[in-house]
């Protein structure tokens, strides 16, 4: 069998064995004790040629219903958005995708500068002083923020709204089990965080409060009022998880005095790809800059005074501080941060605002269309691009019927919220047309009757 990724010829091999001074390559593996040597052949599928394997995997891929074959109103943290063609062309430049962490700045200025620009764009959108080079995803970024608040304030209790993404809350809990941070969940009321519950839970042991803006139900949380409450416990940190696209139109959490803002930049240029890889971001204040997890790129000068960029404040990181590091994160989502940077550059100042605004407008239209079809939208507060609708039916059955009509339906809220059985979370982004919205609302109306 020939292997196109392996250039060693028999002649190369012989010359190398001679130089090393061994008879065959087996001698180089003699340090593996006989008892642990693997004797047989691995029981895995045989090697496949490029043509056959491409054919096979293409067919496998084609068996999946996808966001192009069907019209999707599914969101719940992962969104179907316009991705400019240019994004994939840039990230397909192999100087970017075949490089690793830019530890050698002289030959990594491209990556370093791209990250510096990403950090700037995220700072701008969130209204925060600094942003890091990326995290795995929005959920783990949020969990790191929770642990940072506990570590930094030396307090153990973190209050998390139930209107935060359920999977993010699950990740928060797993991460909190490490250092033993106590997670207290507070309920929502009419689709927004119950501020009375927050007020009663907030005390001198509180390290932080986690709010999602817009929240899991698409509702815009009243951050100004959350801030007022937090002002009664000055040490407690305000941690906000935000869809960064929404911040093109909404007042950024930074302007409400947030201490940490995290989220996922998947909305900018990254396809859903079954949930990953996406691109977590982590933004914070100057005060917390030296406690940030992950990599940071800073601007500096070279010996000739030329502007350049380097990885900086590395004394926070695992490869320097080992067990005293602020986090164990090493690899992040650099290539996806690049994709998001390209998408954000394409949109620019006007485009990001227009796209966010269009999301709200189309969702507002969906609300009317649903109501026009006799359906009741559960929460009446201000929203971004998602709505909760009460269908009063088994959502899984409804979803099946919708599939037959060419739709990927919304999220079944009964999965995570007992009180919301029969409720569907519907996402409407700028890529959904009036016609698609009309048809979908009509289908739901018909199924409801």
């Amino acid at each position, binding site marked *: 069998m020939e292997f196109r990724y392996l250039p060693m010829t028999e002649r190369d091999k012989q010359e190398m064995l001679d130089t090393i001074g061994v008879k065959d*390559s087996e001698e*180089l593996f003699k340090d593996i004790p006989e008892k642990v040597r693997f004797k047989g052949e691995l029981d895995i599928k045989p090697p496949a040629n490029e043509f056959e394997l491409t054919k096979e995997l293409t067919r496998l891929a084609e068996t999946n219903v996808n966001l192009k074959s069907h019209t999707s109103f599914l969101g719940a943290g992962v969104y179907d958005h316009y991705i400019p063609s240019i994004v994939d062309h840039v990230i397909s430049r192999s100087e970017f995708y075949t490089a690793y962490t830019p530890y050698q700045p002289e030959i990594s200025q491209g990556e370093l500068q791209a990250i510096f620009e990403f950090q700037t764009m995220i700072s701008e959108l969130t209204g925060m002083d600094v942003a890091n080079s990326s995290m795995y995803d929005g959920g783990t970024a949020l969990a790191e923020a929770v642990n940072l608040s506990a570590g930094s304030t030396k307090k153990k209790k973190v209050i998390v709204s139930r209107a935060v993404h359920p999977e993010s809350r699950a990740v928060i809990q797993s991460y909190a089990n490490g250092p033993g941070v106590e997670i207290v969940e507070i309920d929502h009321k009419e689709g927004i965080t119950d501020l009375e519950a927050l007020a009663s839970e907030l005390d001198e042991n509180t390290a932080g409060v986690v709010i999602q803006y817009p929240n899991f139900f698409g509702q815009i949380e009243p951050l100004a009022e959350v801030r007022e409450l937090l002002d009664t416990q000055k040490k407690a940190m305000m941690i906000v998880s935000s869809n960064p696209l929404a911040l093109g139109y909404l007042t950024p959490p930074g302007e409400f005095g947030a201490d940490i803002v995290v989220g996922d930049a998947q909305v900018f240029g990254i396809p859903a790809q079954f949930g990953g890889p996406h691109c977590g971001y982590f933004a914070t204040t100057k005060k917390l800059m030296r406690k940030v997890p992950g990599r940071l790129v800073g601007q*500096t*000068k070279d010996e000739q005074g030329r502007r350049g960029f380097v990885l900086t404040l590395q004394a926070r990181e695992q490869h320097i501080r080992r067990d005293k590091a602020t986090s164990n994160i090493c690899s992040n989502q650099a290539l996806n941060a690049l994709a998001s940077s390209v998408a954000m550059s394409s949109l620019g100042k006007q485009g990001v605002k227009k796209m966010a605004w269009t999301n709200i407008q189309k969702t507002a239209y969906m609300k009317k269309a649903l109501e026009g079809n006799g359906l009741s939208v559960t929460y009446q507060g201000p929203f971004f691009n998602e709505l909760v609708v009460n269908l009063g039916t088994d959502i899984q059955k409804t979803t099946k019927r919708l599939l037959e009509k060419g739709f990927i339906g919304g999220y079944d809220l009964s999965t995570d919220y007992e009180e919301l059985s029969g409720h569907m979370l519907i996402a409407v982004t700028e890529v959904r047309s009036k016609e698609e919205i009309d048809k979908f609302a009509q289908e739901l109306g018909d199924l409801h009757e």
Partner: protein
Amino acid sequence: MSNQDFPLIFEHSQESRTGFSLPEMDVPEVDLTEMLDDRYIRKNEADLPEVSELQIMRHYTGLSTRNHGVDSGFYPLGSCTMKYNPKMNEDVARLTGFSHIHPHQPVETVQGALELMYDLQTTLAEITGMHTVTLQPAAGAHGEWTGLMMIRAYHEANGDYGRTKVIVPDSAHGTNPASATVAGFDAVTVKSDERGLVDLEDLKRVVGEDTAALMLTNPNTLGLFEEHILEMAAIIHEAGGKLYYDGANLNAILGYARPGDMGFDVVHLNLHKTFTGPHGGGGPGSGPVGVTEEFAAYLPKPVLTKKEDHYVFDYDRPKSIGRVKPYYGNFGINVRAYTYIRTMGAEGLKKVSEHAVLNANYMMRRLEQEYELPFTQHCKHEFVLSGKRQKKLGVRTLDIAKRLLDFGYHPPTIYFPLNVEEALMVEPTETESKETLDAFIDAMIQISNEAKENPEIVQEAPHTTVVSRMDETTAARKPILRYNKD
């Protein structure tokens, strides 16, 4: 910005220039101020660049030319396995049915994706000799933490709350002790002996009833196989601890040995290293974790299982450590790794390790003529040199690394592992030709000669890169972490 600086994207920006083409706003417009309190409508616009599409493309193309990747040239960065990233993998990962599927679609609509994931899980279990594999962790360090949380849950389920310590060798990756801390353990160091292997006597000294686990990379970060692995496993297991395998160096032993057969209980892999998921300039990676049967109950939720011919996610896992990531892992990277494994098969994967080890030994034997080799036995896929001799001439390892840039190479990993003075850690991988290795060796020999005859040329390197050495001290002292217009 001075005229010799490469402009930032923000410096190309001109008011009202656009680079987007949004879908039509085809619904009747409503007045949002009626819905939304004025306090929540953004007044200071996010100052994103206003640039045309060509400006963006030129900007990033320009940046890419200021970046070195595996496709640009040799990248022998030790411990990172910078092998060729097959182009076919990129195409497969971009197939619409893989790239445009939503994680919350009903499982019956994504059976193809689940089949691939399940087959990858099973294949990785076979390669590592483990019982079950989860694909959920996003990267190696994330896998380490996931594995340690499982070990913690296991001990606690046995009422064993006193196991607070995780032992890591002095040569270990920094992520090992960092992950131990994040998982709520204290990291304890075990020393290496004069042969570069874990000192068994020191291991016996540090192990005890407070030992939760030993984390080990095998071959270790010096590229040496821990020959006493079975004795080490016995020492740890007899004390009631568990053995954790850091898969960073799996590229050395594919088809030759399996962590499961060495006595490891929990294993993570770096699919972006051994299995060609590209490194992406620092990610995304993928860090699957494999476990023995006794740990299967603790795997993160949900667990992908097969019921007859149907794939489903099992959420009913009362002993699970919970979710470690939203959704199901870095699927896009897993698709690339799967495509690679299917291309190679058992025969190809074994050849990968054979060639990787041959390449490393060949380079090591040729370079030990000029550079100090602290550990002289055969290596596996990588080896560590010391720049001690050159240091005496006033040329540091950092200088050697910078001089290599002038030859068009990415330097080896430097100053790691920490237990070797002036370390240079070289990992050629199997995808490099002998000609490339020879040319690199020649460059290293030339640099060694320069250190003797003309040290300035090394000390002042690089001479040919787009920027010279950076003032990293000022960068850390007065951090500038974002662009400001004025």
